[in-house]
């Protein structure tokens, strides 16, 4: 029998549509895989055995009745990052403050997945409220990297990425505030795309930093990722920052790109995202990937974006400022954890005790940094100045895109680092997202595609494009992927 968990989502969808296999069989195969390996990896915070099989059987019944599939991915199961609300599963955002909480409504992304006939296998582990680069900030314990279980799977979306890399799921959803889709994709040898800001609804996505957060698709191939992108993207009247523009045809772009012809495509290598401080194996993999793009006909030039050097400082003022405001909603009054309500404490004391007990160290640090940056006397010097630097970064992108169609860089400065290495050193952790932050500040789309191995661990190629040009990522990504050939799989699990 074909090993169903090894197939691509596109292949599975075709087999389910032609009724060669049932969605129930496919879903059960992935649930079995989760039962087999997740005790070690901990990709999932919640596994929805029964609900996933019910959803799969509904797809099978609909197809058996002669109906058209609900979407091109109908029947293919998926792992959902635990930051999207679901009425039939817990939603924790990786935090103790939401332990046991049950959302009264589905996120728009959740609704879109259900409507597309995609069974939800469960909710994946993440850094608390998506704050982190290693998934070690999850209040429920870390996820391990399937390539080397002594190393992190990246973060914040380490659960979704590890689920893909270990064949627990053929598709996953992540969110990317500063790299939380692309960076885990890079270090697990999977594909992840952060769409243009506003491309995928944030309704029901528990907020980290609202002007940066963006949900997006994750897969093992560029085409699978494109198929999922098409399912979740589009205008949502419930999200006032949702784009009104038409969704770029990313599936057509991925199929066109797979022909491997990049003639006429101008590619810029970002000088500021290529440093001798990066791991040598990452640089050599990146340089080889650029040569592949050249061999496919792309015209490659170096471009300079000098303001990117200030992206980290700008990001780590803007993000905590938005965090300090957004997380004020966790006040112990209306939902979530409540600590100390024994009649001796005031509402304000209960609030402070609950937040101290319910938030982990990184969330507390960021709330306090944000409170500081927004304080009278510091507002203009920090937050206001960071917003101006954000404008400079966007201008650098605009100038670059006058010369080229896409920009490329390594996705991360090094391969996956050992568990525990950076957990008590916030700055070292922040620096790991150096290459992914600028696109979030500009609101642009970007993707990570596996480019090879360095010392046995995956390396990611980052492709960036202007706002609304998400299709360029898929064209270039698919062309590169086809030329690169089959990517190895982890042997560890």
């Amino acid at each position, binding site marked *: 029998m074909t090993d169903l968990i090894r197939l691509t989502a596109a292949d599975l969808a075709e087999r389910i549509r032609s009724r060669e296999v049932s969605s129930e069989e496919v879903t059960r195969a992935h649930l079995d895989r989760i039962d087999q390996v997740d005790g070690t990896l901990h990709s999932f915070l919640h596994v929805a055995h029964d609900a996933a099989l019910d959803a799969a059987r509904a797809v099978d019944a609909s197809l058996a009745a002669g109906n058209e599939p609900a979407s091109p991915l109908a029947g293919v199961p998926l792992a959902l990052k635990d930051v999207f609300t679901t009425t039939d599963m817990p939603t924790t955002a990786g935090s103790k403050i939401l332990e046991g909480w*049950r959302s*009264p409504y589905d996120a728009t992304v959740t609704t879109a997945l259900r409507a597309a006939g995609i069974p939800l296998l469960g909710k994946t582990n993440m850094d608390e409220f998506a704050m982190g680069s290693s998934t070690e900030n999850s209040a429920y314990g870390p996820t391990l990297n399937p390539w080397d279980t002594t190393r992190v799977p990246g973060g914040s979306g380490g659960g979704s990425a590890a689920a893909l890399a270990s064949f627990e799921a053929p598709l996953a959803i992540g969110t990317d505030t500063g790299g939380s889709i692309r960076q885990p994709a890079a270090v697990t040898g999977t594909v992840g795309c952060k769409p243009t*800001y*506003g491309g995928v609804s944030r309704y029901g996505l528990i907020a980290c930093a609202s*002007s940066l957060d963006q949900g997006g698709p994750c897969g093992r191939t560029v085409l699978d990722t494109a198929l999922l992108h098409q399912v979740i993207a589009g205008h949502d009247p419930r999200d*006032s*920052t949702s*784009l009104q523009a038409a969704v770029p045809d990313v599936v057509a772009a991925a199929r066109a790109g797979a022909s491997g012809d990049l003639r006429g495509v101008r590619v810029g290598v970002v000088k500021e995202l290529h440093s001798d401080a990066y791991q040598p194996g990452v640089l050599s993999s990146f340089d080889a990937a650029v040569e592949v793009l050249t061999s496919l006909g792309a015209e490659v030039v170096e471009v300079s974006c000098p*303001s990117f050097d*200030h992206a*980290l*400082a700008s990001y*780590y*003022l803007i993000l905590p400022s938005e965090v*300090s405001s957004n997380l*004020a909603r966790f*006040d112990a*009054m*209306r*939902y*979530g954890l409540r600590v100390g*309500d024994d*009649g001796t*404490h*005031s*509402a*304000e*004391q*209960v609030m*402070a*005790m609950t*937040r*101290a007990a319910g938030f982990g*160290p990184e969330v*507390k*640090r960021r*709330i*306090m*940094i944000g*409170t*500081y*940056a927004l*304080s009278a*006397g510091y507002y203009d010097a*920090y937050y206001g*100045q*960071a*917003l*101006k*630097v*954000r*404008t*400079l970064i*966007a201008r650098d992108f605009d100038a670059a895109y006058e010369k080229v169609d896409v920009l490329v860089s390594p996705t991360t400065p090094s391969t996956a680092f050992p568990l525990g290495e950076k957990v008590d050193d*916030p*700055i070292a952790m922040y620096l790991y997202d150096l290459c992914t932050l600028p696109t979030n*500040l*500009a*609101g642009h789309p970007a993707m990570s595609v596996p480019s090879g191995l360095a010392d046995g661990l995956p390396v990611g190629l980052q492709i960036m494009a202007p*706002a609304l040009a998400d299709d360029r990522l898929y064209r270039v990504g698919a062309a590169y992927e086809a030329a690169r050939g089959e990517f190895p799989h982890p042997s560890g699990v």
Partner: protein
Amino acid sequence: MTDTEGTAPGAAISRDEVAHLARLSRLALTEAELDEFAGQLDSILGHVKAVSEVDTTAIDPTANPLAVTNVTRPDVVVPGLGQDGALDQAPSSEQGRFAVPRILGEEQ
């Protein structure tokens, strides 16, 4: 936030200031947490302070990457959560309302 007493030479923020931030942030931190966070916040602020050295003369701030203005929708009633839905996950409720600890008579 003008009290810089206790700030070590060259430090961006003092332990007392961190304690003040914790109060503003409604975080009842332990003494051990304050000790740990004081050093870490100092290190983080030391890095991010670099933005103040960037020349941003005549540069407008960007708060939202999309140049969107107000977004409105037609003023039409649509179904909402309802009282039961809204109270379903409340830590405590009474007579169809959220029940909260006392809010009056607190120290200021």
